């Protein structure tokens, strides 16, 4: 199942927690069989343009779903589903 319209991004400033959020998010998307490719963006200006100043950020369809911390996989799944 390929979902063309939805997008999931992890934005970071290169910190270790950002990498961790990206890895767990990939796993969460896989578990939910959403068929969406998770994008990892290492660009501070992108985060600022979204109106945020903390990293990491999990954005679903361009909207921040989690900001500034990396919770466990169940919470990440819920954040993705709530925002899709």
């Amino acid at each position: 199942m390929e979902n063309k319209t939805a997008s999931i991004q992890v934005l970071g400033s290169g910190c270790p927690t950002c990498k961790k959020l990206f890895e767990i998010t990939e796993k969460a998307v896989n578990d939910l069989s959403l068929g969406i490719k998770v994008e990892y963006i290492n660009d501070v200006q992108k985060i600022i343009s979204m109106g945020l100043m903390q990293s990491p950020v999990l954005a679903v369809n361009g909207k921040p779903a989690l900001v500034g911390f990396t919770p466990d996989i169940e919470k990440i799944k819920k954040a993705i589903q709530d925002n899709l």
Partner: protein
Amino acid sequence: MDIFYPIKLLSDWLTFSLFTITPKTLLADAINFFIYDTIKILILLTVIIFAVSIIRSFLPPEKIRFILSHKNKYTGNVIASLLGIITPFCSCSAIPLFLGFVQAGVPLGTTFSFLVASPMINEVALVLLLGMFGWKVALIYIFSGLVIAILSGIIIGKMKVENLVEPFVYESTTNAQTDLPNMNWSDRFIYARDYTWDIIKKVWPYIIIGIALGAWIHGYVPTDFLAKYAGVSKWYAVPFAVLIGIPLYSNAAGIIPLVGALTEKGISMGTTMAFMMAVTALSFPEFMILKRVMKTKLILIFSGIVGIGIMFTGYLFNWIL
């Protein structure tokens, strides 16, 4: 009653009963001091960092920015400095904070007040000051830090240095108001737990080394050993302390316990205070990172003003304490 009394009992038991070190010897003193301080500081750090993280989950930088974008100049400097206390600061957040503030229209002077207060008055330094010197010194430190942050921001704001910020910073703008995803108590708890664990993981080796050196100095170095080099009467002690404080940022956690012990050996309180402020507020790695968003001249102005403020505070406390 002393709330740390149980820790005292525990460290006495460890030193004299478990390790069977003869009481009243230099070795017993040093080991007892080391165990007591390490346990006390680690407990204080955990409790206070956790509490501050919970508060911070209610006041993320995005909300702080919204508050600051609606304040006039002087109120803005005061509030920015106060909010800087609860904001965590590592040099990695300097750029996002700077860009986020300036691009949302927060004045440069207000942004600098925040950039000065945030690393200088941080919870790790405060816990260590509290543990090593007591609440009076910790309060004096907070208060002087606030005054330096407010005044530095006001002065930089008056200097009209916008042209010393890299032009790309002003090419984008962003809205000061952002809708953040909701956090419930379980999210706040996870956030605070992870943040506390991250910090403890990072600082514990420095703290243990700092306290160990401090314990050794406490036990073995004669009192007043340093007075002839760094006592109140030595005018150059304060600027010297500020200069050697600049490259030491990453070890702030280890330096405070060490300095705590040195103070007992004759370094005056104002000099100690100036040294600790320089360690936390002026850091060489942070300057390097700030170079991406501002010209070297602005970094020099910023560090010069803050440095002078710190030296002034050092002399003031040498004089009155």
